[in-house]
């Protein structure tokens, strides 16, 4: 385990390096922040002056090395648009997005777990069909459409919950529902098919034949085995939630990291996007590490390598 972690740590450094090169390159391809800042009648000379002041006039390799050498010590530069430290701007947004992600994950599990288990236990029954259908409704509607409809119905018509923004839990309910229903369908279906698969394996059949007809035991066995793909997907979802809540946060004007990303990208605010992606990269590395370790714990047949 110790050497495993040590090796992963070394490889992680390479992952971060790879991410930084790619993001830096993609961003420079995406345009020029000064174009967006200047008045419409600005001349080419004005652009050159502004680029020089912002350090965007240096050759790209020099800019990259400057970025890298500072990033190593945690300095991701200053936001071009907002003139604030980029990393701090990202860090300020993480709690809001984590709150949203956590609650939507709870929503997803609340929907997915019972539905998934029920439909796997009674495959092709009415309950199964209904649960598949329910899970699918959430999955088949574009996120932004669901969000806007929820706002129109719950906030405008019924006047039950605020339409937007961050505040108490009442502000979180609609966005969490919007975000959670999508993951719910995914987890529900994966859970169902995994449990079905496990229920069909020899050892469960044997267990059943031996008279362990107790559903509870079956579910426990099945869940444990079905956990692998589900954990994998959950791992994917956590990082996807962080950057994937872009649409939901935009619809609900929710001041999380996703909204920051989409706006920083729109403004070509390179330092903020770079800081954002490096934070995500670190999270992805940690999550994947945890997922790999959990594999080993859940399914002893899996040897941890790499």
């Amino acid at each position, binding site marked *: 385990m110790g050497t495993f972690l040590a090796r992963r740590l070394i*490889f*992680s450094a*390479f*992952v971060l390096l*790879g*991410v930084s090169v*790619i*993001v830096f390159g*993609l*961003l420079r*391809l*995406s*345009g020029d922040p000064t174009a967006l800042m200047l008045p419409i009648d600005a001349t080419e000379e004005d652009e050159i002056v502004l680029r020089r002041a912002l350090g965007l006039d240096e050759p790209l390799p020099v800019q990259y090395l400057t970025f890298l050498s500072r990033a190593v010590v945690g300095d991701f530069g200053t936001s071009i648009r907002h003139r604030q430290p980029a990393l701090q701007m990202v860090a300020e947004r993480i709690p809001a997005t984590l709150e949203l992600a956590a609650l939507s994950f709870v929503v997803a599990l609340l929907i997915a777990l019972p539905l998934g288990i029920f439909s796997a236990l009674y495959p092709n029954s009415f309950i199964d*069909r209904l649960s*598949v*259908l329910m899970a*699918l*409704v959430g*999955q*088949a*509607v*574009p*996120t*932004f*459409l669901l969000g*806007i409809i929820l706002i*129109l119905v719950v906030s405008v018509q019924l006047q039950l919950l605020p339409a937007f923004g961050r505040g108490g839990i009442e502000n979180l309910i609609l966005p969490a529902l919007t975000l959670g229903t999508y993951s719910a369908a*995914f987890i529900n*279906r*994966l859970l169902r*098919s995994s449990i079905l*698969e496990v229920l*069909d*394996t020899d050892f469960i059949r044997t267990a059943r034949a031996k008279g362990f007809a107790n559903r509870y035991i079956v579910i426990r066995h099945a869940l444990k085995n079905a956990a*692998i*793909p589900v954990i*994998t*997907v959950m791992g*994917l979802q956590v*990082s996807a939630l962080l*950057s994937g809540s*872009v*649409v939901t946060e*935009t619809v609900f004007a929710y001041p999380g990291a996703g909204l920051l*990303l*989409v706006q920083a*990208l729109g403004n070509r605010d390179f330092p903020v996007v770079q800081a*954002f*992606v490096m934070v*995500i*990269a670190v999270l*992805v*590395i940690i999550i*994947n590490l945890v997922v790999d370790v959990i*594999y080993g714990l859940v*399914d002893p*047949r*899996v040897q941890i*390598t*790499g």
Partner: protein
Amino acid sequence: MAESLQQTTVPQLATPHAERRTRPRWQQNLFALLYDPVTLISLIVLTAVIVMAVAAPVLTPHDPELQSLRLRTRPPFWLMNNEPGYPLGTDALGRDILSRIIFGARVSMLVGIGAVIIQGTIGVLVGLMAGFFGGWIDTVLMRLADIQQAIPFLILAVAVAAVVDQSLLNVIIVLGVAGWVPYGRVVRAEVLSVREREFVTAARALGSSNLRLIFTHILPNVAASITVISTLTISTMILAEASLSFLGLGVPPSTPTWGGMVAAGRDYLATAAWVSIIPGIAIFLTVLSINLLGDKLRALLDPTL
């Protein structure tokens, strides 16, 4: 061994090929499939979508890009004040929604299937190799997946849109390239658990080559997961296209896509809901059908059955 190989070559969607199989189990399954009303309805919906996609120019009553501002946001036939000849109403530029739905089927299916083929191919190959060979290959591939996963696909989409003009092909490629990681990880995870099973170790002991092991023993066993993910992601991709349109990074707007229509119509939800809701229903039905069918297919493909 031979049996499982054949099973994996069955195309992802049910096609007439399957009927030529003479194996009793297959026949059984197929009959079950066709007698199941849910499956049948799904099949009908999907057939309709595919027919729309293929024969769009013949089926449309109007040019999907022809606009008439004077006819903007006319409601569909079941509402008051509708315009004869425009059964599903018109959008914000007075274009015929029915015609755009029909043409949109083509684009949306292209996006969905195209992106899934790209990401599936990359992801499954990576997952198989990583899981089967383990060691440094696994390490390198999985760290590559980490890199891909850490880069929000929006950045890729923004960069591509800036370098080349927005187009259908670019959207497909962006979605395809950015989406292989889930396949890679799930397939790898499955392979990890399959490769230690008795029948694989037995085959290996009998001297099977790696390639043979992967494609005859491992792949069939992870096919169920791949199918589930693929069907789910076809719909995910159709929806992702909608999200891209929402963020202004989608297919050029005069090209009708369902996602683009929903996105463009969202501002009208309070006043002319059909502009957005009707393509939303098209997406809903298609996604539902694909997923229901994918579920059935999973049962058929699962070698443990």
